[in-house]
């Protein structure tokens, strides 16, 4: 055991002791107690306060109203981080324009057994329905665009595993460019919904009208469907962006190893 390992071991143990001491001495301000923070109280009180509509978001879901209203700009930038991570992955794969040769890969790419394929055929539409339900009810029930997009991406991943990548590309017409476009459409929709209040002379990302601003754009409900102003549109757009982005990543991840070796000349 050399001195380097001793230093690392001791500093790890020291870090553990210091962090535990900080937390136990009240570093997180409120350790779980019967009371919550005043900030959280404000959000819970105001998210669907129909009696004083100054700060309301017209959504009974406190988490979504915070995500896309109270701190919406923050979520927008989180979305751009996500966007950049996908751009980075696509850029890494830009050298490989895969055109799989059918005859070479016929045997390898025939997929799993009939049992797996049949159950995947049953489950795949269900996954799509669940993800759409989570997205479209994101402003009313737990869930929202991020979660729904992640659920949606599980579907193509399952198809890649059970059938093959070639099946997706030739039978279902999935391609990298389509998902790039779909994801960009989602992001453009988000930007449009953010910028729309400017047309009425209000501020960016305004959801419900404020007494000191002139605008009223997004109605609370298109009778009888409750849409909570912008929240519904944000959720659906984010659903598209996240779902298409992850599907794109899974498609790239499933490019066979031989293709890379051929292209890179290894």
């Amino acid at each position, binding site marked *: 055991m050399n001195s380097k390992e001793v230093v690392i071991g001791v500093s790890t143990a020291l870090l553990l002791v210091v962090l535990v001491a900080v937390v136990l001495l009240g570093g997180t301000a409120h350790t779980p107690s019967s009371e919550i923070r005043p900030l959280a109280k404000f959000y819970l009180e105001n998210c669907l306060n129909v009696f004083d509509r100054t700060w309301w978001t017209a959504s009974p879901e406190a988490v979504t109203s915070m995500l896309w209203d109270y701190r919406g700009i923050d979520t927008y930038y*989180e979305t751009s981080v996500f966007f950049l991570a996908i751009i980075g992955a696509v850029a890494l794969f830009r050298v490989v324009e895969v055109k799989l040769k059918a005859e070479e890969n016929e045997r390898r790419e025939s997929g799993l057994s009939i049992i797996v394929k049949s159950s995947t055929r049953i489950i795949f539409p269900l996954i799509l329905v669940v993800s759409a339900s989570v997205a479209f009810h994101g402003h009313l029930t737990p869930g929202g665009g991020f979660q729904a997009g*992640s659920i949606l991406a599980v579907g193509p991943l399952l198809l890649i595993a059970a059938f093959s990548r070639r099946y997706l590309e030739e039978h279902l017409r999935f391609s990298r460019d389509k998902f790039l476009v779909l994801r960009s459409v989602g992001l453009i929709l988000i930007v449009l919904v953010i910028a729309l209040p400017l047309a009425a002379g209000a501020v960016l990302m305004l959801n419900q009208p404020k007494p000191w601003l002139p605008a009223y754009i997004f109605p609370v409900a298109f009778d009888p469907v409750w849409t909570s102003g912008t929240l519904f549109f944000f959720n659906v757009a984010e659903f598209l962006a996240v779902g298409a982005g992850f599907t794109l990543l899974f498609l790239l991840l499933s490019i066979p190893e031989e293709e890379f070796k051929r292209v890179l000349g290894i």
Partner: protein
Amino acid sequence: MSMEQFLQAYCYVALIAIAVISLYGIVRGPSLIKKLIALTIFGDVANALIIYVGFRLSEEIFVPVLPTLEPTPEKIAWFTSVAVDPVPQCLVITAIVINMAVTLFLAFLIIQVYRLYGTTAVKKIAKLRG
């Protein structure tokens, strides 16, 4: 120290211990893949810790979703007195998805490193030239 306080302290110590161990894994992992695994564990523990800070220790607990679209003042007062803290949940929702995207990006990088150099061992990669 009451039973609740002891359990709280226990949860904090367990979560922080996992976080520190995964940090050790990130630093000392011999392979890039093992470093990536440690990184995902670290991210998940951080999220769990944030969620735990927002927990509410009381008789009646409720999710931060108002169960009606036509609330009365009493309903809102009840909701405020039982719902858990929504702020940490809101932070974690985005963090999970961003975590997943960054993890996939790192996985791509590691795959590319493996394809080009034929190894993911950090010490061997450091010795490579060109």
